[in-house]
C-alpha cells in the first residue's frame, strides 16, 4: 500500500494541474488584454486607457452597477419582512411557502421573458433600467426571503420577545433588531444576487434597446460577433477584464458569507 501521505500529495498536485487548465481561458483573456495584436504577447496599457476614457463604456459600466445594485438592494425591504414571517409565524400559508420558496429558483425565467417584454411594452417599462431592476429582483425574491428566514430561525427568540414586551412594533423589530443580527445572511444574498445580475445579458437583450441604457454584459455580447481586426479584439478583452473585476472582488471579499447561504 502506498502511504497515505504520498497519495494525498499526488492528488493535490494533480488537482492543481487540473486547476491550471480550469482557469486558463481567464489567464488567456487577461494576457491578451495587455497586448495589441491577437496572438502576440506584449505589455501595454493602451486598451485599458482607451476603455476607461471612453464615456460610452463607462456609461455601460454605470448601468450595470445601477441594475445590479438596485436589484440586490430592493430585495432587502421587500424580502426581509416576509423572511421574518416565514421564520417566526405559523399558518398553513406559511408552511406552504416554506416548502415552495426554496424551489422558486427552479422556474426557468428565460421562458417568461417574451411575456415580460410584451407586458413592459404595453406598460411603458420597456427600455428602462428600473424595469430591469424590477424583473431581476422579483425573480429571486422568494428564494432570498427563504434564505433570510433560515438565518432568522437560528436566532434566539428571547431578544425579540424582550423587544415586543417593551412595545416594539413589528416593522421596527424587523429592521432595527433582526437585520443587524443576520447581517452575514443579508450580505451573502446581496452579493450572490449582485453577481448573478451583473453577469447576465439575456434579460437586458430582451428589455433594453437604446444606447443610454445598455448594460455592459449586453454590450459585450453584441460586440462578440463584430470584433473585426486584431486591435479591437484585444480591446474587447480589456473590456472583459474590467467587466469581470467587480464580481471577482466582491466574491473574494464575501466568499464566506456566500457559502453560508444554504447552510440551514
Amino acid at each position: 500500500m502506498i502511504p497515505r501521505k504520498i497519495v494525498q500529495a499526488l492528488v493535490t498536485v494533480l488537482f492543481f494541474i487540473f486547476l491550471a487548465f480550469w482557469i486558463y481561458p481567464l489567464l488567456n483573456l487577461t494576457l491578451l488584454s495587455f497586448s495589441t495584436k491577437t496572438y502576440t504577447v506584449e505589455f501595454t496599457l493602451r486598451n485599458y486607457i482607451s476603455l476607461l476614457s471612453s464615456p460610452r463604456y463607462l456609461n455601460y459600466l454605470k448601468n450595470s452597477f445601477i441594475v445590479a445594485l438596485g436589484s440586490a438592494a430592493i430585495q432587502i425591504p421587500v424580502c426581509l419582512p416576509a423572511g421574518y414571517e416565514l421564520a417566526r409565524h405559523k399558518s398553513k400559508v406559511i408552511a406552504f411557502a416554506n416548502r415552495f420558496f426554496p424551489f422558486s429558483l427552479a422556474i426557468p425565467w428565460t421562458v417568461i421573458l417574451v411575456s415580460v417584454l410584451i407586458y413592459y411594452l404595453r406598460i411603458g417599462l420597456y427600455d428602462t433600467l428600473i424595469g430591469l431592476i424590477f424583473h431581476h429582483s422579483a425573480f429571486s425574491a422568494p428564494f432570498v426571503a427563504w434564505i433570510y428566514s433560515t438565518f432568522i430561525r437560528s436566532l434566539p427568540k428571547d431578544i425579540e420577545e424582550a423587544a415586543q414586551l417593551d412595545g416594539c412594533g413589528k416593522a421596527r423589530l424587523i429592521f432595527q433588531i433582526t437585520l443587524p443580527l443576520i447581517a452575514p445572511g443579508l450580505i451573502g444574498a446581496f452579493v450572490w444576487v449582485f453577481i448573478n445580475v451583473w453577469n447576465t445579458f439575456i434579460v437586458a437583450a430582451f428589455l433594453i434597446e437604446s444606447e443610454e441604457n445598455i448594460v455592459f454584459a449586453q454590450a459585450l455580447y453584441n460586440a462578440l460577433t463584430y470584433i473585426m481586426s486584431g486591435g479591437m479584439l484585444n480591446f474587447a478583452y480589456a473590456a472583459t477584464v474590467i467587466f469581470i473585476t467587480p464580481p471577482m472582488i466582491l466574491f473574494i471579499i464575501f466568499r464566506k458569507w456566500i457559502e453560508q447561504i444554504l447552510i440551514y
Partner: protein
Amino acid sequence: MARKGLLRKQKLSRRQALSTAGKIAIGVIASGIVAGVAGYYAGGGGAPLKTTTIKEKETVTVTKTVTQTVSGPTVTISPTTTATSVSTTPTATIPTKVELKFAHFYDPALGGPFKVNHDYLLKVYKGFAEEFPNISIKETFYPWDQLDDKMMVAKKVGIPIDLCMASPQVWLKHREVGTFKDLTPYLKTLPKSLIDSIMWNPSWRFKATYPEGIPMNLHVSILVWRRDLFEEAGLDPDVGPSNIDDLIEFAKKTTKPEKGQYGVAMTLGDKIQNFQLVFVPFVWGYGGEIVDEEGKAVFADSPEAVEAVKEINDLFNKYKVASKEESFIPDATEVWKRFLEGKHAINLSYFTGLLAWYESEGMWKGIAPPTEHPVYLKARIGPWPLPTGYGWGHGGWHLCIHANSKHPDEAWEFIKYWIRPEVIADYPDMGIPAHRDLWNKPVYQTEPYRIMFQQAEKVKPLPTSKFYYELCEQTKYMFYEIIIEGKPVKETMKKYQDTFNRKYYG
C-alpha cells in the same frame, strides 16, 4: 445591555405598527394594480396603426436613356431631363435649437470599417453644423443586425428617434409597422437630376424601398482572391476564375489541407449571411428563383437553384476544396478574417461593403476610398464567375426619417445635406456610389470600379419578404443538412421550402 436601552426608545404601539404595515401592503398591491391597468390602457390605447399604402409614383420618371459604355475607360451618361430649380421651404422665423437623434451602427468602438465610417460621419456632422448651426446630431448605436427590428419596436413604443438607417431586405415588415415617414413631399423639393440619379439604384428602380428611404450606397457581391496564394500555387496572380470550372481548378491547386489552407470559403454558418452571401449569389448566378411576388419560397421548384446548391455541395464533398469547419463558423466576420489570415485563397461571400476594411488590412491600396491609381497588393477582386454574371445588389443601407420624429423638416435637411454629391462622395461604406451621376468622377474610372459597375448594371435587389430573417434561418439549416449530413439536395430543398411556406403562409 446596549440593546435593551435601544428598545426603550421604541414605543410604537402594536396598533400603529399594524396600520403602517397594513397600509404599506395595501398600498403596494393597489398601486400595482392601478399602475398596471392604467399603463395597459395608456400604452395600448394609442393611435390606430398607421397603414402606409405604397403611393403612386409622382412626377418622377425613370430615365431609361442612360447610355453607358463600360468597356472604355470613361463612363458617359446623357440625361434626357434638365434639372429643375431647387425649391426650398422658406424659413421666415429664427430657427430654434433642435437635436436630432440618429440611430445607426457605425460604432467606432468596434473598430475596422465601423470606425472608418464613423470618422467620416463626424466630418459630415461638422460640415452640416456649419450650415445649420441650430441643428445638432446625437448618435445612438445599435448592432447592425438588430437595427431594423429595434427601430420597429421603437416606433411601436414611441421612443423618439429622428433619423435612422434601415435595411431594404426587411422593408415589407417595416411597411407593416409603419416605421418610417413618407418622404414624397420632401423628394419633390429635390432637383430632378438628383432624383433620376438615385432612381437608377436598384432599390428605387424596382420600387423596393421607394419612397420611404434614400439608398446611400450600392452593394454588389463580387469575388475576391489572394494573389500571393495563387502565386505560390503556380497560378497567375492577376487572373481570376471566369467560370465555375476555372473556379474549381484554381481552388484545387490552392487547397493544401496539411497546411490548413483551402481553396474556397463561404459564410454558411452565419444566421443571415448564409442566405445573403452564399445562397442568393449562387442561385441568381445560375439564374434561379428564390421567392415569388408574395414572398413565398419557390427555390426547390427552380432547377437552376437546385443546380446552384448542388454546386455548393460539390465544392465541399466532391472536389473537397472547402473546409467545413471554416465555412460553418457562426459569424461571417470570422470567415472574412480568415481570408486576411490566408486560410483560404478565394472568398465566395464577399461584397463591396467590405472594401475599406480589407484596404486597412493591407490587401490593396487606393480602392476604398477611391483614388485614381489603385494598386492590388495581397488580394484582387473580380467579377462573379457564374453564368449570369451577377449575384445581388441593392442600395445598401437606406437613410430614413423615423415615424416618431418630432422634427422631420430638420431631419430632412440633414438627409438633403448628406446626399449632396460632394458630401456623399467620400462615404467609405459606399462601395459603389449610390448616385449615378457620381460615376463619371475620375476616381471611379479605374479597373476595380469598372468591374463593380459591370456587376451593378445587371443586379437584382435581394428578395424581400415579410419573413426575411426566417427565410435566412431556413436556408442555414438546409445547408447544414445537405453539406454536413449529406442528405440529397433536391429533397432537402423541397422540405425546407415546404416548411417555410407552411409555417408562414399557412
